[in-house]
């Protein structure tokens, strides 16, 4: 116990110290965790030692949880739409990379079986690092983000057949493999069944997962939610995830894949947000722990001894993966910058490599001398990924993203306009078009380089860039502009940008899009009075049409909507002072309900529904009616 608490202190302290520093200097949280791991690991401070591997195994559960949360956010329809990328890109990536790496292995003098095994293993990329980094940079929704996700998903699927194939590549007799396999892989009884039964059990397990997820789980959650015990709900959420993982392990499937499937099944349930908010902190902590463990497990003495070999391995690993992805990206028809991002993002070994490598060692597919080197190479390549993505973001994307006019781009962005418009999605593009139609030229920044390319081809002045970077804002003319219009769809990113602009360019007047009341409060609190809730006007427009269709006079309905709007805006401004006073925030979904209640209570005073008194004064009839 003492020991456990002590290492908890070491890990948590490392995270608390390293991550904010890493974020501050722009390295991102993943690299922060990795560095923290290196520092507390045996090579530097030596606070944690041999148990690093165990911690990593425990922390792998963070990946499982991450896939559950991803599944929750992914509706089945979207998954179906990704099927082409999933099978095409993902399948070709795994096969292509495995083939190329195996060839290198054979050339380097490995036995063909060992070479094939390491090729297959190393074709995996790191779901944890790639998704975390892309999400942090807001690139998940870009073309490269979606395609990377599809490839990662396929890799997670591919783990299962690879686990099945590896024992067949062993260099010793089959009997001893079976013995080794039993002890190592937690496959349970299913492994001893003949293949067709195993397939049957697997199918049954997946069917059970879907069935239970659709029927029993919502029922149980309804009961728990009615009991209003928050921690029970958290416990139930954890139970669900861990239960799925255990079931999957039992039938020999990947727990990550199983929980992902569970997430997808629950994506359409009404408890989706509750589940997300409950699992989120565990996921974050475990993933952090996982990255720390990766950092701590980098065997620096080994790297020192075999420096040349390890470096060659890292270079070959990243080089081959990058090459294969680059060729695939060609066929997928991506824009240059997205193409590069896609290839760079996935050009590393992943957490499954560690799992598969230890499995391979246990099954005597690979000698320990080789796996030690490969583990070091994989860990290094993972540590390099955030750096490479950072390089892409800083150096490559701003240039290649505007490849249509590489020389011009910089000049144009120099000639300052009065208005900087950030975020050119549906909302931002409407604002931009309206301003352009009225002769106001804007400097538009967006983070989707393919969109930027397309808009540039249409002759629009749109620039690629992460507007949270001060230098980019500066070159967009923030020092001379009058207005900054912030239309990023992600409310958090929009708010962070507003705060940054207030700090660095205090003269800029900010007009900001807000998702709903809560994000409007946060904007006002951050000192941005010009806040526009994205659905307020269209909702009231619809409401007044509804009133009209129900028989009210059109103008009367319109006036009622105007009055409602004015009162609602006043309420939001009044409530923005106090919204933080209530510390008992349960979670975002319940918070929204609480706010709705408050605003509906404010509506109930009747002033909103009454007519304009001057037009139809009851008092007039009272005064003159008697005469």
């Amino acid at each position, binding site marked *: 116990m003492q020991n456990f608490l002590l290492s908890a202190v070491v890990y948590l302290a490392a995270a608390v110290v390293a991550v904010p520093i890493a974020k501050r200097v722009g390295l991102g949280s993943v690299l922060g965790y990795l560095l923290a791991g290196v520092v507390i690991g045996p090579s530097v401070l030596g606070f944690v030692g041999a148990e690093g591997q165990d911690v990593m195994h425990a922390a792998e559960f963070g990946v499982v949880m991450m896939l559950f949360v991803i599944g929750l956010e992914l509706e089945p329809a979207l998954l179906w739409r990704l099927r082409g990328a999933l099978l095409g890109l993902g399948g070709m990536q795994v096969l292509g990379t495995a083939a190329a790496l195996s060839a290198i292995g054979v050339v380097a003098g490995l036995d063909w079986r060992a070479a094939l095994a390491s090729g297959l293993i190393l074709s995996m990329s790191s779901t944890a690092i790639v998704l975390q980094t892309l999400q942090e940079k807001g690139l998940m929704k870009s073309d490269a983000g979606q395609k990377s996700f599809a490839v990662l998903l396929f890799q997670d699927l591919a783990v299962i057949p690879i686990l099945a194939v590896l024992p067949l590549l062993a260099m010793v007799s089959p009997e001893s493999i079976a013995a080794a396999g039993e002890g190592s892989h937690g496959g349970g009884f299913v492994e001893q069944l003949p293949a067709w039964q195993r397939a049957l059990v697997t199918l049954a397990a997946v069917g059970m997962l879907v069935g239970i997820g659709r029927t029993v789980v919502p029922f149980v959650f309804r009961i728990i939610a009615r009991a209003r015990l928050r921690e029970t709900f958290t416990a139930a959420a954890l139970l669900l995830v861990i239960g799925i993982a255990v079931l999957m392990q039992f039938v020999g499937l990947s727990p990550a894949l199983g929980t992902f499937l569970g997430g997808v099944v629950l994506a359409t349930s009404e408890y989706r947000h509750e589940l997300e908010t409950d699992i989120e902190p565990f996921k974050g902590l475990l993933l952090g722990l996982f990255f720390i463990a990766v950092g701590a497990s980098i065997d620096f003495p080994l790297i020192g001894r075999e420096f040349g070999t390890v470096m060659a391995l890292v270079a070959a690993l990243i080089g081959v993966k990058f090459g294969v992805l680059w060729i695939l990206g060609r066929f997928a028809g991506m824009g240059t910058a997205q193409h590069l991002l896609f290839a760079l993002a996935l050009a590393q070994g992943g957490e499954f490599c560690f799992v598969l490598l230890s499995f391979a060692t246990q099954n005597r597919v690979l000698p320990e001398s080789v796996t030690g080197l490969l583990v070091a190479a994989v860990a290094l390549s993972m540590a390099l990924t955030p750096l490479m993505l950072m390089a892409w973001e800083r150096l490559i994307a701003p240039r290649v993203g505007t490849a249509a006019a590489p020389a011009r781009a910089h000049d144009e962005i120099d000639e300052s306009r009065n208005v900087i418009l950030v975020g050119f999605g549906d909302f931002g593009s409407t604002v931009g078009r309206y301003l352009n139609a009225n002769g106001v030229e804007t400097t538009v920044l967006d983070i989707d380089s393919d969109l930027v390319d397309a808009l540039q081809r249409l002759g629009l002045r749109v620039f690629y860039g992460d507007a949270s970077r001060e230098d980019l804002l500066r070159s967009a003319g923030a020092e001379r502009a009058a207005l900054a219009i912030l239309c990023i769809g992600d409310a958090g990113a929009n708010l962070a940008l507003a705060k940054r602009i207030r700090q660095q360019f205090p003269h800029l007047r900010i007009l900001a899009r807000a998702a709903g009341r809560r994000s409007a409060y946060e904007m006002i609190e951050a000192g941005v009075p010009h806040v526009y809730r994205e659905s307020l006007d269209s909702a009231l427009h619809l409401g007044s049409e509804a009133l009209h269709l129900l028989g009210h006079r059109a103008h009367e309905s319109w006036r009622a909507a105007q*009055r409602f709007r*004015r009162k609602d805006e006043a309420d939001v401004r009044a409530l923005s002072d106090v919204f933080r006073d209530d510390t008992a925030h349960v979670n975002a979904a319940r918070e929204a309900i609480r706010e709705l209640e408050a605003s509906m209570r404010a509506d109930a005073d009747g002033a909103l529904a009454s007519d*304009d*008194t*001057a*037009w139809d*004064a009851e*008092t007039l009839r009272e*005064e003159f009616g008697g005469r």
Partner: protein
Amino acid sequence: MHRQLVRAVQDLDGVTFHDLYEAYPDYDIDVAREQALLIAHEVVVLQHPFYWYSVPPLVKQWFDLVLEHGWAYGSTGTALAGKTFQSAITVGGRETGYGPQSFNHYTIPEFLAPVEATARLCRMQWASPFVVAGTHAISSDGIGRAAQDYALLIRSYAGTPASHGAA
């Protein structure tokens, strides 16, 4: 034209310049705010161009909504009693175009009768209107002179807190 008139008076001490079309582009007049402004001032000058022999639509809307029964008129509506009301208008045609024998058949004060009656119903003092005529063919000197006259008029009110609505 109106820009010049406004510029001549908007920064005078004791004058509140209140631009209705700037304040309510959506015609959504804040009645409480308007009534508070009226109460705070002794003189109301309503400046606007003459549109179809009458006030612009937002000014009519302003009358409709702000001058409530029981507040501005009626047996208990005494909020505006005793205050001074004056129209300040510009018309495109020359002064000679207005009158019984002329092109427009009525005089300008006759056209303003509804406004005058409104002011009187609200128990306000009706001051004869300030009129700049012939703005279709006015010279920049003419504008300058009109602005000077206007400033003189408003300054004479500025001893008492004057309100100045523009449309």
